[in-house]
């Protein structure tokens, strides 16, 4: 058993050094892409195409197969950035700072998808484009947290200093996010909640629930692929004048 465990540990440490990560990412990118595309499309096709229609909302509930996975992913990316921030603050690992800087736009993208699909979902069901529902409001605030991280990073020229500043914000953010969610829920109950909330849909029948699970897994695989893709670009642009970049990237 501990052989496997030490294998994983070495792999993690290897990932800590940019050249090794770059080589691993370049070699495994096509596989990740294939896996991501497979899982992602399987989940969506199953969810949108074949799962039965909801008795109350009809077919429009199928948006759940896009809205819920991207909302879940948005929050877990923020958690990942907080872990990266913690590592970069404690061990000063350069790769952790780069991880935050490449994961932030992805997280912002998924939060945006969650917001827009949420408001599109609201239009047929409640007639207005936007509802100040607890989940949507906390997703909107999460979007501002992502904007804060991206804004702070782009405003500092010296990239290593920018990484340290952003990791502080990421670690602080992960403490704030649950507090925000609780306070928004409390805010929701304080103002006599509108009679419905978006995703507390009644216990879903298994044939609706399974595609959702596959979709969430598909989204995670998609994220792993996108992260290694953008982290690769980040490493090259950061270590551009290093020897190993010349050897591996410019093939001189």
């Amino acid at each position, binding site marked *: 058993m501990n052989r496997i465990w030490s294998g994983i540990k070495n792999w993690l440490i290897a990932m800590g050094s940019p050249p090794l990560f770059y080589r691993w990412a370049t070699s495994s990118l096509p596989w990740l892409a294939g896996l991501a595309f497979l899982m992602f499309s399987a989940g969506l096709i199953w969810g949108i*195409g074949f799962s039965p229609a909801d008795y109350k909302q009809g*077919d429009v509930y199928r948006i759940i197969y896009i809205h819920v996975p991207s909302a879940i992913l948005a929050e877990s990316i923020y958690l990942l950035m907080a872990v990266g921030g913690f590592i970069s603050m404690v061990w000063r690992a350069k790769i952790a700072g780069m991880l935050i800087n490449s994961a932030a736009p*992805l997280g912002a*993208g998924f939060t945006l*998808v969650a917001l827009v699909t949420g408001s599109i*979902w609201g239009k047929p069901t409640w007639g207005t484009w936007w509802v100040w529902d607890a989940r949507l409001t906390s997703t909107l605030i999460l979007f501002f947290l992502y904007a804060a991280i991206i804004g702070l990073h782009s405003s500092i020229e010296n990239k290593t200093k920018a990484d340290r500043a952003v990791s502080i914000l990421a670690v602080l953010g992960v403490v704030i996010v649950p507090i925000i969610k609780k306070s928004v829920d409390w805010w929701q109950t304080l103002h006599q909640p509108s009679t419905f909330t978006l995703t507390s849909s009644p216990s879903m029948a298994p044939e609706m629930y399974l595609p959702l699970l596959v979709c969430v897994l598909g989204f995670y695989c998609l994220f792993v692929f*996108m992260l290694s893709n953008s982290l690769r670009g980040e490493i*090259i642009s950061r270590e*551009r004048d290093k020897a190993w*970049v010349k050897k591996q990237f410019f093939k001189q």
Partner: protein
Amino acid sequence: MLDSLQILFLMDGNGPYVWSCLLILIIVTGVNIIIPIIRLNKISREGNLEE
């Protein structure tokens, strides 16, 4: 075959909403995938800074 696609597309009136959500998802993720690739091409074209 054709009419089942028709039903799939229309989804009794709610079709456009579902498909626009899918479109937004594809656009946003597509942009997030393409930007790093463009950045890498720009760097490899510019070559390293020495020369």
